[in-house]
């Protein structure tokens, strides 16, 4: 059985590393939701565009990974701003469900735009990062890097939200939308900044994911739903809840995928999600009361 245990440990470690990236994705979504009270259904599609940006900057224009990454992050941040100004802000006063559906339309739009612009071929950076062996457990360097960068991104966001004036305003708005406007905070400006930060987090996730996965127009569908489930399970807008949920989900996917197929890992995660709603609906209701 020792043979199996090594694989189990490896799956657990990989789950932990996957959890870092998922937590980063959930963080961006939670930030947007907590502050603007809008769920960007198309969040994973922003990540997909970020991955294409990485591909084009790094491979087609040959700029190298470390120059392509900030460019891509900035690009996706701008997309977040555009999304907010063009789609969300005209709908701020209408029913939340309309905002959700509008971003669903953006999901279709971005997916098709990628198909039209980039074609349906799978593309990758062609970077093969080595594997590290620690006590018989093989760890992919790309995943380790992603995990580290995700953690760094989260710490940076935490510092931004707690140590800067704008960050404080963002947190205040997420607590009470009406009062802050009366207190002289320009909510529109804060919304734009939040959208930019949320988009930039999607861009950061894209830089990390592109090291592990090929990019194609439908890549968003493979981690978009899971990101949403993580956010819902952690309590939409609740960043700490989302952080924990991300690691639970990642472990289920990774360990479930070890014993059966990867799809079964996802099935287990989804079933777990629905079962949790029976057992702990507070996770879902945390922000509503």
């Amino acid at each position, binding site marked *: 059985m020792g043979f199996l245990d090594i694989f189990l440990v490896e799956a657990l470690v990989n789950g932990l590393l996957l959890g870092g990236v998922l937590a980063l994705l959930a963080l961006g979504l939670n930030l947007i939701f907590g502050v603007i009270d809008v769920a960007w259904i198309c969040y994973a599609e922003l990540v997909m565009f970020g991955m294409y940006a990485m591909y084009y900057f790094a491979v087609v224009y040959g700029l190298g990974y470390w120059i392509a990454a900030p460019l891509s992050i900035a690009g996706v941040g701008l997309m977040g701003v555009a999304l907010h100004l063009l789609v969300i802000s005209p709908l701020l006063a209408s029913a939340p469900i309309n905002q959700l559906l509008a971003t669903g339309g953006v999901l*279709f739009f971005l997916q098709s735009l990628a198909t039209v612009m980039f074609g349906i071929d799978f593309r990758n950076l062609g970077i093969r990062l080595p594997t590290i062996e620690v006590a018989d457990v093989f760890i992919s360097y790309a995943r380790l890097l992603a995990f580290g960068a995700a953690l760094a991104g989260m710490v940076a966001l935490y510092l931004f939200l707690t140590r800067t004036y704008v960050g404080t305003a963002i947190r205040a708005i997420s607590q009470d939308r009406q009062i802050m406007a009366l207190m002289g905070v320009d909510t529109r400006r804060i919304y734009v900044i939040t959208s930019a930060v949320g988009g930039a987090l999607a861009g950061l996730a894209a830089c990390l994911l592109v090291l592990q996965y090929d990019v194609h127009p439908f890549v968003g569908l493979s981690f978009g739903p899971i990101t949403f489930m993580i956010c819902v399970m952690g309590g939409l807008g609740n960043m700490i809840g989302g952080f924990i949920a991300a690691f639970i989900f990642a472990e289920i996917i990774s360990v479930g995928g070890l014993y059966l197929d990867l799809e079964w890992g996802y099935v287990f995660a989804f079933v777990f999600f629905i079962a949790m709603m029976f057992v702990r609906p507070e996770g879902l*209701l945390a922000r509503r009361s």
Partner: protein
Amino acid sequence: MNAIPKGKVGLWAGAAAALVILPLAWGAPYPMHIMITILIWSFAYTSWSMMGRFGLVSLGHGGFMGVGAYVTALAWNNLGLSPWLGIPLGLLCAALLALVVAWPCFRFRITGHYFALVTLALSGIVLQVIVATRGLTGGSLGYTPDRVPGGSSIIAFQFTDKATWYLIALAVWAAGLVIWYAVERSMMRYALEAISEDEDAAAAAGVNVTAEKLKITVISAMMTAMSGALYCQYQMFVSPDTVSGISVSLQMVFAVVVGGLYVALGPTIGAVITILLGEALRIGFGPSAVGWDNLIYGLLLVVFIIFLPQGILGSIMGALRRTPARASA
């Protein structure tokens, strides 16, 4: 929405007769195919709007459609169970799935966009289960019900004749509208409208909130499963991408929003517009049109939600209703 005035009965009967006779008299295969497709999807979209119009926006209906299609086809291929029994079995499975997911949602007051996100998980589950059980379902490659020798059989619910399919699809579509009107005139509608306005107030007024919502959800899920089964039997091929998953769920929402959520024929208009648009692009641009149809759909969806949330038919009917009222006042 009162009873139809007597003078209009003749008009409706004429329209119904025209719908039955004209396409059959014309009979060209391609237009027939388009009309059958429109009718099947119209029925699916109507099913979604049954609950969508009461503010229960589900993104899980792709899942119900997949269940209907795959249960029917799997029962036929593996158990030799005729679709006449397989389709009810599929509907039953969809109803059970709807209960399992919707009951905790309604019990714990998960509404609005929370509900939409939870049902989104349902689409994902059904899609992944179909892909994961590829030994049985063929996974992403799709699945084909076994053909009967000769091609047509009533027991196998397989017909090579487009006219037969047209009449079946027309009948099911009409049945969908009948259910829509039945709900429109029932007490359930008032209960659900009260719930969508304010759940607490509705509960205080004696409405059993959970039970009413569950009822409409199960009706909607079963109708959607029916559309999936019908689609599978007509196309004789299903794949997870065409009948389950998030794209299909969003496609339903999109078509209904474009057509009009609060009017009976809105989903049908939505289906006509989306399918004709898709076909026009496909014919106009050929293979290079890949992606353009969804590009335009997505753009239209956003534009409609921002500028015309009542949908095309809803806005037209709203304008018509307002004009005479103003004239008489």
